[in-house]
């Protein structure tokens, strides 16, 4: 009886531990695979094929699944991050590269970098509402706080575009600088920050007037953003310079820069704010930065050309 009780208790403990295990999902865009990693042990859990050129991923608004956008397979894969099970596959979604839900969860937007288009879907049923032809290479996106507008960087034509989601028309397109990539709203909702790779800077845009109000010099190949989660600081990766900088959005200055190897790309911050995880695009690794020291403390081998990364439990994204 005692043995049975111990066994049950052990099993219960193991189950509880498994349930608590925090999963990190990494997309290996160059080989069409996913690597799931246990965040506590830093050990890969599994590695499996998902489709062709999965670049970006995000949670459904109700957190019921993770959406993986396979750009070349032309589909969206709905995944359970906890188990790695593919729940369903939504075919015939044309070349989804970057994806995003509007804050009001009404619109799902997919940028087609390769084909110069932005597709707006009804987020409830992924029915295509409007297709915009933009020149050229629509890359990253951000939404206005009221969900009325999606802002898209046009990497090939050095522009930033604003699309009105209510009237479904392009509101404005402004020159932003050579090869823009990431775009993010500041936590106060007043400005957009745009990573301008070719100028090694962050452009600060007042989106209400469509004016650039400041240029913040950053590292080489200023690329993508991720909020630190404190409502003030934002990380920006400098993909050609192999560094990550921290922007203070109140002073609009760079406060710190630290090295991260191999083409730092997409980032995630742990819910406790202690770690920054970054995909290292050129070296098949994910780097873990200890944010108390701003040093890379671990590298985890993943697959070819790792791009998107997702934490089940992450810091606030503003």
């Amino acid at each position, binding site marked *: 009886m005692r043995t049975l009780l111990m066994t049950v208790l052990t099993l219960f403990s193991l189950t509880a531990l498994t349930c608590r295990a925090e999963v990190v999902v990494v997309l290996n865009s160059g080989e069409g695979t996913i690597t799931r990693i246990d965040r506590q042990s830093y050990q890969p859990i599994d590695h499996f094929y998902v489709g062709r050129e999965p670049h970006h991923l995000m949670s459904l608004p109700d957190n019921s699944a993770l959406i993986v956008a396979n750009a070349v397979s032309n589909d969206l894969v709905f995944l359970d991050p906890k188990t790695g099970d593919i729940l369903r596959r939504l075919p015939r979604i044309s070349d989804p590269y970057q994806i995003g839900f509007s804050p009001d969860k009404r619109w799902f937007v997919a940028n087609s970098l390769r084909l110069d288009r932005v597709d707006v879907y009804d987020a409830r049923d992924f029915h295509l509402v409007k297709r915009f032809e933009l020149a050229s290479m629509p890359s990253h996106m951000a939404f206005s706080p009221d969900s009325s507008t999606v802002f898209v960087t046009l990497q090939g034509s050095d522009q930033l575009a604003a699309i009105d989601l209510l009237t479904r028309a392009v509101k404005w397109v402004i020159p932003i600088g050579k090869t823009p990539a990431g775009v993010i709203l500041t936590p106060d909702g007043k400005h957009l920050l745009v990573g301008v790779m070719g100028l090694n800077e962050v452009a600060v845009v007042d989106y209400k007037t469509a004016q650039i109000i400041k240029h913040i010099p950053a590292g080489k190949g200023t690329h993508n953003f991720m909020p630190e989660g404190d409502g003030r600081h934002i990380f920006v990766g400098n993909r050609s310079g192999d560094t990550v900088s921290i922007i203070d959005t109140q002073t609009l200055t760079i406060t710190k820069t630290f090295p991260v190897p191999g083409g730092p790309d997409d980032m995630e911050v742990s819910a406790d704010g202690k770690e920054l995880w970054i995909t290292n695009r050129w*070296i098949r690794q994910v780097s873990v930065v200890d944010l108390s020291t701003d040093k890379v403390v671990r590298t985890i081998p993943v697959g070819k050309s790792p791009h998107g990364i997702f934490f089940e439990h992450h810091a606030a994204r503003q």
Partner: protein
Amino acid sequence: MTWFETFMNGFTLTQAWIFEHCVNPLLPPLGLLAYQEEAFDATEFALVGMGEVALLILIFRPLEALFPAERWSGRRGVRVDILYTLLHRLGFIPLVMFVLMWPLTFKLDAWLRFHGFIPYTLEDLIPPLENRPLPTFIAYLVIIDFFSYWLHRFQHRLEWWWALHGVHHSQQTMSYWSDDRTHLLDDVLTATFFSLLSLAIGVEPGQFILLMMIPRILQSLAHANIDWRFGPFEGCLVSPHYHRYHHGIGTGSESGQSSCNFAVLFPIWDILFGTANFSKETPPTGIADQQEGRDYGSGFWAQQRLGCQRLWRALTLGKA
């Protein structure tokens, strides 16, 4: 860590180093920073190409010395083919073709999608392939080989195309370097054909970079000056002997309908469509009119120029 993981780590770090120190710094001044990811892939292509060329030399050169199908007084005639091979396998000509095909593969693709037509992939057409990258890769290999067979037949059947394809067949000292000896316009036509095919069935999964070397190495083997037949498997895979017969004067190296052994990898297509010839004869390679003194050029530019002249004659006079 297994030897394969060690090898892949070394490869990855080498690729990253070359990209970050040699390729990436060139992109901003050239205005090509938006194509950083493509440049990274191109670095891999070139690096794999270098490895492939090294393998060709290490494996096929000794085999050509040990088991020659033909004995030559020297290898001078082979030199120009080395240039073609390096231009192709290190990525220079594929890069030019990629840029030339951009309007077709991307703009047409974009236009079709904008008007509601999403091109299919093979996995859409054959659902059991979904989520099975290795069988998908093999399926693409077989399908592309089928279309390569028919493209090759038309290169011989159409007089104007033969005018260009003659560059490939004019090699009289055919070796493992000869596979890429092609006219640039022939490359454009081939690239156009396969770009259109990719719109119909998608492109093969790109994650098997080492696996993708295998068909290219087999094509080099098919051209090698090695007296090899594959015995009971002669009908399964194109052997050096089988392909040498295709390049033989008076046997396969002809325009019109008299040629044979068009298959690139799998002779099954020749068998199915009645063009296989498993003769044991080993004819000299080249084109019949070379024996009457016709010049196809010995250097790269001469071969390209004379190919254009033959094309013009074929288009205006009906005969190359």
